[in-house]
């Protein structure tokens, strides 16, 4: 259905996720390898933003100086605290594939206590940091000192950028009601972790 005055589609979904055939010229490289996923398909509506956002997201969320395991701890924990269904579902699978245990994943999702699943203080400090950032955004000195313990500044900066970028995506995906891929839902069902 289309709003008569604005011409804007007011269908069931907040926005249309563009397909490869509909991809704007600047967005086509992102569709060349197949379905790029709903975040890219939504960003393609504004191709000049996609051109900047996609590489940024790729650098922040992709392979970097941080260990992939701790990156998934940050992404999944932040997403769960922000109640982002899409990101929790997608990154539950990624976290499991990254070597996090079933118990750790359930803990990050808020289904089990952190203390039992993560005995190491260095992990708990990161989780507490994520919880604080998703909350009011202000971080007390004790929480900050725990995170900084034994970590160089560049790691603190990257952990913080990762958590806050995840939070940005959490709000984006939740607001636009992005759909989880069927294969992800199937994996979640197999793991007994459907939302």
């Amino acid at each position, binding site marked *: 259905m*289309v709003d*008569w005055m604005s011409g804007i589609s007011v269908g069931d979904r907040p926005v249309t996720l563009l397909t490869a055939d509909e*991809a*704007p010229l*600047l967005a086509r490289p992102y569709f060349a390898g197949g379905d790029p996923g709903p975040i890219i398909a939504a960003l393609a*509506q*504004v191709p*000049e933003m996609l051109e900047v956002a996609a590489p940024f997201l790729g650098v922040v969320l992709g392979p970097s100086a941080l260990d992939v395991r701790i990156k998934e701890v940050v992404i999944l924990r932040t997403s769960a605290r922000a109640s982002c269904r899409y990101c929790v579902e997608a990154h539950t699978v990624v976290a499991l594939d990254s070597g996090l245990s079933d118990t750790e994943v359930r803990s990050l999702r808020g289904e089990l206590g952190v203390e039992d699943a993560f005995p190491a203080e260095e992990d708990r400090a990161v989780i507490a940091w994520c919880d604080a950032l998703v909350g009011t955004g202000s971080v007390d000195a004790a929480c900050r000192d725990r995170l900084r313990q034994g970590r160089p500044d560049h790691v603190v900066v990257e952990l913080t950028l990762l958590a806050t970028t995840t939070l940005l995506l959490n709000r984006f995906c939740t607001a636009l009601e992005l759909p989880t891929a069927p294969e992800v839902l199937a994996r979640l069902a197999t793991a007994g972790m459907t939302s």
Partner: protein
Amino acid sequence: MSTAVAEAVREGRLPGRVWLYANYHCNLVCTYCLTDSSPKSPRRDLAADRMVDLAVQARELGFTDLGVTGGEPFLRPDMVEVLLAMAEQLPTVVLSNATLFHGDRLTRVEALAGQPVVIQVSLDYADAEDNDAQRGDDNHATVVAAISRLVERGIRVRVGTTLDPDAEVSDDEHARLCALHRSLGVADEDHVVRPIVRRGRADVADVGVRATAADLPPELTVTADGAWWSPFGPTIRDGVPETDLLITRTTDPLVTPATALLRLIDGRPPGDDAHLGIR
């Protein structure tokens, strides 16, 4: 001011014209309309001051010409004033169905006489029956009369003919159309013939040639919804602008889509020029 755009235009890599979609609504419902325009279409107007500002920016960037299309631009009561202001910046062509040039509108449009503004009027066939089958009852007679009135008032008129590429138009039919436009005071160099492009309503009606970016000259085109590769880009399907030829949503400053268009052009293979003659 020399800019990358000016350089590309001088070198012939980038067409010099910038198109603006004034609106999307129309008093006609042509069978092959790219923009699915009708009296009930959402207007999607570009505001008058926005159009003039885009004209200023186009000139400053080094573009050499402007085009205005729609919808039917002259449904907007401010169109003559907008065209005069745009033409102070660059020569301007405006596409029109020419069915509104009578009464007060005809009086207002007289102000375009002697100005660097050309009205390109749609007339598809020499025979009224063929023409009106595509463009509506009495369209042929209305348009022929309007062209005469415009020419009499010193307004330069071009005739734009849009043909179904699968329809066989004989040399005799084409000659009669040319004789008609000459008799109305429109010279041969002001007669443009192009195929129906299979987008928008034409695609739904299963007529016209398919055209991709490789087939269309990269003429920067601005609408209320963004900037496109070509005036054949911002077509309407199921009530929504098609996005496959979208460049950017940002249109102000104009340098943003212009620069993106240049990047796209520079990414095209050498010699990959438009070959369908769709202009």
